[in-house]
């Protein structure tokens, strides 16, 4: 089989770090993640409409005011009360301004609307600190256990390389949430997107490592540099990597193109995560393992000549 890959892990890592650095600098200068109402909290405005109404009319009216992140719902068994959740506004005047603009638009269509007894209250985040803290702790704990499993089934270096890759994929996702802050807001579905990529990314890495493990057992490759074994393994896995990435991307991109705003908030980070996973499993994870393994073998060889041959045969 013609080997199509070379070790580009150093430039690949530098490029990935550069993206993270851009995001970091942006955050430091106050252009960080664009938190939506799920994380930042917002304003709850409530009206008694005194008649049934179309939620889409209210949504159109909100969009006309330049709002993109909002939730409109009907409350009450008679379905005549309107509940709007929007991001926090900076001043009482702005709330007043928005309310009067909304009222003008809606009164035209729903003349029974009660504008005198409207309420506007600040509400806290839906994805509270407890949920977020818990999600982060769970992911860390899951990573440790996955590292343990991979160390058991493969070796410790594979485990370390896999977790570093996983961290890369998640950090790239978060970085793009910063870089694309004008396009996408972070709401609670981001947590689900992040967890999806954690599961997806580890699959990608394991498939490559499985091939490396198999090739390591092959006597023909025992004299090769580990880096070259990785080159070969990545090439052998390429068909699978490309096909799986395509099938996954097909469904997600369909959702992104056709979906509503809340679906885009979820699918955009996933698309980025899938691409990051492709990038890291082809260009990074195997080579990190090769670096660690080669260094370990060299050290062993210095200490005890002939150790490398023994290890390869084992």
């Amino acid at each position, binding site marked *: 089989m013609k080997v199509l890959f070379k070790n580009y892990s150093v430039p690949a890592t530098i490029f990935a770090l550069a993206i993270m650095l851009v995001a970091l600098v942006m955050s430091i200068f106050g252009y960080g993640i664009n938190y939506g109402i799920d994380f930042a909290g917002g304003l709850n405005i409530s009206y008694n409409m005194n008649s049934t109404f179309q939620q889409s009319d209210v949504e159109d009216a909100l969009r006309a005011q330049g709002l993109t992140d909002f939730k409109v719902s009907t409350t009450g068994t008679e379905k005549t009360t309107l509940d709007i959740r929007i991001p926090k506004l900076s001043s009482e005047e702005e709330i007043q301004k928005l309310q009067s603009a909304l009222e003008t638009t809606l009164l035209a269509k729903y003349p029974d609307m009660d504008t005198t007894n409207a309420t506007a209250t600040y509400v806290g985040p*839906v994805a509270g600190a407890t949920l977020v803290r818990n999600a982060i702790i769970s*992911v860390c704990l899951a990573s440790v256990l996955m590292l343990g499993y991979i160390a058991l089934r493969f070796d410790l270096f594979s485990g370390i390389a896999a977790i570093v890759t996983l961290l890369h994929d998640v950090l790239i996702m978060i970085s793009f949430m910063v870089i694309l802050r004008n396009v996408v807001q972070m709401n609670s579905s981001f947590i689900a997107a992040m967890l999806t990529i954690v599961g997806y990314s580890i699959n990608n890495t394991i498939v490559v490592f499985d091939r490396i493990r198999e090739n390591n057992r092959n006597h023909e490759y025992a004299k090769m540099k580990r880096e070259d074994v990785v080159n070969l393994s990545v090439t052998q896995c390429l068909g699978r990597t490309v096909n799986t990435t395509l099938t996954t991307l097909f469904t997600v991109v*369909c959702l992104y193109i056709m979906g509503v705003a809340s679906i885009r908030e979820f699918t955009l980070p996933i698309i980025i995560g899938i691409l990051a996973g492709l990038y890291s499993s082809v260009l990074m994870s195997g080579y990190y393992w090769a670096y660690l393994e080669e260094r370990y073998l060299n050290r062993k060889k210095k200490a005890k000549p002939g150790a490398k041959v023994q290890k390869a045969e084992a």
Partner: protein
Amino acid sequence: MKVNNRGRKKINRKTSAAIGLAILLVVTIFVGYIALNGMWLDNRGLYKLLPWMPKTNVTKETWPKPIALGLDLKGGVYVEYEATLNDELKNDSNINFDTLLTNTMDIIAKRLNEKGYTETTVTKVGDTGIRVEIPDVTDPSVVLDLIGSPAKLEFLDSDGNVFMEGSDLKTATATVDENSKPALSFSLTDKGAKLFGDMTAKSIGKTISIQLDGKELMSPKVDEAIYGGSILVTGSFTKDQVETYALQLQSGALPLDLRQDKLDTISATLGDNALTTSVNAAIIGIFLVMLLMIGRYRLAGALASWALCIYIILMFLLIAVVPGIQLTLPGIAGIILGIGMAVDANVIIFERVKEEAYLGRPMMHAVRIGFKNAMSAVLDSNITTIIAAIVLLFYGTGSVQGFATTLLLSVIASMFTAITVTRFLLSRMVTLFKDPNLYVIGMKKHAVKPAAVAGEAK
């Protein structure tokens, strides 16, 4: 004779393969039909298909249990509370109200989580309000059962004087007594344990009374002093009763007093079109995935598409049956994404089969060896994901838990369909049709000369 026998055996094997495929096809269509149309009695589902089936009282409303949807897709009920410090804490100057409010919100969220409402949201309203939105509930009065109305527990001595209250209670749990009858188990604080011990020591031979909101739970005769702080309250309780009591008593342990402000139904935040477009996107996505699979792996890809249909039906059933899932729009998107990921195991397997076919092995061998070689990658990659899902299920809260359940189900279902169903289909199909060109593209270009295989074989 010998030749004849072998000939018949071959036919038998082909026939049984064809029968196997036909049976699975019928089962897939049948189960798929039920999954899409349901089994109810309005001449649409199973009973239209099989009119001779005995009729039951099952109606569209009672069965099948529809898939529970989240707040964004279906709405639910909401309740707003006004939180205040209770009398005991009012005089305490070290109290941080915000911390207590956060604790109260966490307890409410945890309580609803334990009841399976993982997509519940609990938010702070203004400075002292708490708003709880619960999906998949239509009757506002259920909220009280779910969150619990705080109850007042009192222990009375033989003269009817209260000597101990609910504040000395550490936990109250529903359990069973030595006769397996429902009972309540109390564990007391250190202070409560001493109080109760001293009181029972004084009341030997007399009766004391345990009351909940003024209603007598139990009036046992004291035989000996009971120290140690754990009490088992027995009587003629039903299981539901003890569970309600336990919940109500635990509610008494909320750090703040809650006064219910508003309680009503709330509609979905997303219109019907959000669900429709997502489902349309899913159908297009599935179609593209199948097209790609057939393009890359031909007949094997078609079988993978068949297995994918079985996976989708399985997921529908599991989500409806397994508790603790309320599907939100991101949840549905996650399942659709799972469809793309579900074919991954098939891709890994088919790539391995392709390699073997290129080496010139007959398809039957190539499939067997391909599956064997792919198994470690499929198992290891899925087991790591399962480990992650289980951790999230046990340590995560709220929507993270709901997500973990869906993830776990989809990994297990996809692994089952890829390993069992695809293998069943493919092994039978290659018995019927042996030509490798039906399963593998580029045979002409990549196939190794038979001589090379002979040389490689050990």
